[in-house]
């Protein structure tokens, strides 16, 4: 019988134990994977739930903030919280955030955002110095990170919790790499609809196996790999992002050794393997077992797919193995996927034709195994991958800036989604302690902030309307940075736009356009560079311009993607350009120190 909640999935694992269906955690010290079966993991999570219940204040509906380095400790706390009706929320760790202070700031924010102070789960080995920075009102529970250690276990929920599919399962933080506080409420029904929808869309068997290194604070890591595997009873090899960045070949070797059939990554993961896995490793890898390599990103880069397929063809990777998909936290994770039985395709577009309610000028159409794609010239056309069609239970439509449906195909607009995977809403970020902490999404279409078009029945992701920057697979919401810069420049954030200069080029400049600002002298530039928020992603240029240079909608909202278009055509009239290289910042620091 199909489970309808994550708790029923856990109970199912306990009722039908199978040592082969397991989470395999990479152990850097022993250089091997430590297995823990889903049945054992569930039983330990039920016992961890009992610890949560016994805390002062109890567990029911209480938010549990999880700040752990290891996947095992993170998931034990996650499933444990779910088992007793608490609401888990996984935080990025200092290595991702840039500092302990950034994590502490996040804990302080979310810790007091709800009617009852949230509870914090930390790993045993986190430093005492860090522990001392946690406010005394926040209860802290420690968890052992060693999956092979001694553990309590229970066969069912410690408090008899029985959630309904519409009940909240967890809060997913979004744009997790910035200081911005935003989270999406995901229900049990959302999780089941999405993980089952993915399996059916890809016509997967009961014998699949998966390998991942994605961070668990990220929707692609948590839902797209961990809950997908757990919910479909697929074994999962798991390592941390740090372990992957240090040794990317480990991910591929794990797939080979355990005969994995599925893996998922953003552009960054594929590019990184193409760049850094050695020819010696390529010569020994057998990846003929891999049937689905999902790539999810906005946009998916054709050059990324080309490079990866070229490099790993000798290992058994083919163009058909690569499966572009489209998703976002607001749709639990996956919205559309490409057909597993055909080779994915892309279209080449005239770059200037991309705009809301504008018909696309399609220059060419190709599949990933088309020899013609070698002749594709990135300077003349933008290549856009198909993201396929909607999974079961979801509807994808294109709307204009007023939210009106665009029914014509080949016309760009904002992607809007509806259906069973659409999350409950955003977690309210305002008055602390509100009775219902969720701002529920209205019935009907949810606008995604991504620009796309339907061509021949398939979705193509064209541009980004929402103001985020994506680097190394991480999303950075730029609004917080715009506000910080506004304060430094004593100007309204409405006159500052931060944007990537080319979303198809991972190394393109990140530009800040400041309007209504006269040129700054050397001292003012030095002071600005020294005071700029250092935890932010690397800004490359600041452009100071006169008024009305930032393109806006009729209602006055900044249009970051039109900034990009203007910039690419040298169409921004600026009065001063400030270089923001590390060398320039160091020079500024020395100049300011000398002046003091």
């Amino acid at each position, binding site marked *: 019988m199909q489970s309808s909640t994550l708790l029923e999935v856990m109970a199912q694992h306990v009722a039908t134990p199978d040592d082969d269906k397991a989470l395999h955690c990479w152990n850097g010290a022993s250089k091997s994977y430590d297995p823990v079966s889903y049945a054992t993991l569930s039983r330990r999570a039920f016992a961890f739930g009992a610890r949560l219940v016994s805390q002062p204040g109890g567990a029911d509906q209480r938010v549990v903030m999880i700040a752990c380095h290891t996947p095992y400790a993170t998931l034990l706390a996650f499933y444990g919280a779910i088992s007793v009706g608490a609401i888990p929320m996984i935080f990025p760790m200092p290595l991702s955030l840039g*500092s302990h202070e950034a994590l502490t700031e996040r804990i302080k924010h979310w810790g007091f955002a709800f009617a009852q102070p949230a509870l914090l789960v930390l790993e045993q080995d986190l430093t005492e110095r860090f522990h001392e920075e946690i406010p005394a009102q926040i209860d802290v529970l420690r968890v052992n990170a060693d999956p092979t250690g001694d553990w309590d276990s229970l066969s069912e929920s410690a408090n008899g919790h029985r959630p309904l599919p519409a009940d909240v399962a967890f809060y997913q933080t979004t744009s997790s790499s910035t200081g911005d506080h935003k989270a999406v409420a995901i229900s049990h029904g959302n999780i089941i609809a999405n993980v089952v929808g993915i399996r059916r869309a890809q016509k997967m068997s009961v014998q699949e196996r998966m390998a991942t290194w994605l961070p668990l604070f990220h929707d692609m890591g948590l839902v797209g790999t961990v809950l997908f595997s757990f919910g479909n009873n697929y074994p999962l090899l798991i390592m941390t992002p*740090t372990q992957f960045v240090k040794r990317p070949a480990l991910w591929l070797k794990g797939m080979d050794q355990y005969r994995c059939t599925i893996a998922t990554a953003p552009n960054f993961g594929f590019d990184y393997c193409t760049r850094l896995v050695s020819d010696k490793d390529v010569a020994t890898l057998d990846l003929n077992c891999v049937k689905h390599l999902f790539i999810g990103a906005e946009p998916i880069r054709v050059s990324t797919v080309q490079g990866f397929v070229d490099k790993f063809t000798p290992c058994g990777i083919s163009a058909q193995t690569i499966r572009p998909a489209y998703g976002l936290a607001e749709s639990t994770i996956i919205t559309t996927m490409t057909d597993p039985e055909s080779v994915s395709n892309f279209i080449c577009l005239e770059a200037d034709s991309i705009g809301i309610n504008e018909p696309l000028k399609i220059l060419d159409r190709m599949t990933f195994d088309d020899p013609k794609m070698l002749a594709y010239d990135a300077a003349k056309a933008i290549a856009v991958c198909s993201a396929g069609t909607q999974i079961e239970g979801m509807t994808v439509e294109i709307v204009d800036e007023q939210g009106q449906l665009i029914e014509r195909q080949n016309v760009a607009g904002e992607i809007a989604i509806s259906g069973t995977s659409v999350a409950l809403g955003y977690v309210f970020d305002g008055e602390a302690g509100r009775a219902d902490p969720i701002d529920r999404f209205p019935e009907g279409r949810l606008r995604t902030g991504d620009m796309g078009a339907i061509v021949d029945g398939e979705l193509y992701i064209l541009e980004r309307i929402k103001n985020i920057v994506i680097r190394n697979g991480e999303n950075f919401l730029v609004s917080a940075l715009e506000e910080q810069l506004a304060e430094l420049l004593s100007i309204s954030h409405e006159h500052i736009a931060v944007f990537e200069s080319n979303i198809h080029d991972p190394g393109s400049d990140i530009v800040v356009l400041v309007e209504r600002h006269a040129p700054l002298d050397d001292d003012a530039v030095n002071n600005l560079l020294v005071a700029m928020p*250092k935890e932010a992603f*690397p800004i490359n240029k600041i452009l100071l311009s006169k008024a009305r240079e930032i393109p806006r909608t009729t209602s006055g909202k900044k249009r970051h993607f039109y900034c990009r278009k203007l910039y690419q055509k040298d169409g921004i009239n600026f009065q001063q350009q400030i270089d923001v290289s590390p060398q320039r910042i160091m020079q500024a620091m020395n100049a300011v120190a000398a002046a003091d």
Partner: protein
Amino acid sequence: MTDSQQIEQRIKRIIADKTKLDEADLHAGLNLEESGLDSFARIELILVIEEEFDIELSDSESANVATIADIVTLIAAKVGT
């Protein structure tokens, strides 16, 4: 020159090489963020340090270093100086 000073010198050389900053501008109290290393570049730095000193640093150890001095202390403890 003490072992710790030698470690500090090697760390500064690695960071200068990675950031293209002048080695003379780097001091023990310098925060890694201020040297222009984002979170991704910091992980790459940890890898170079592991290879340079033939040690393995866990995620939590890697996360606990904020300054050059922190790295020196961690490595000194690992290599037993």
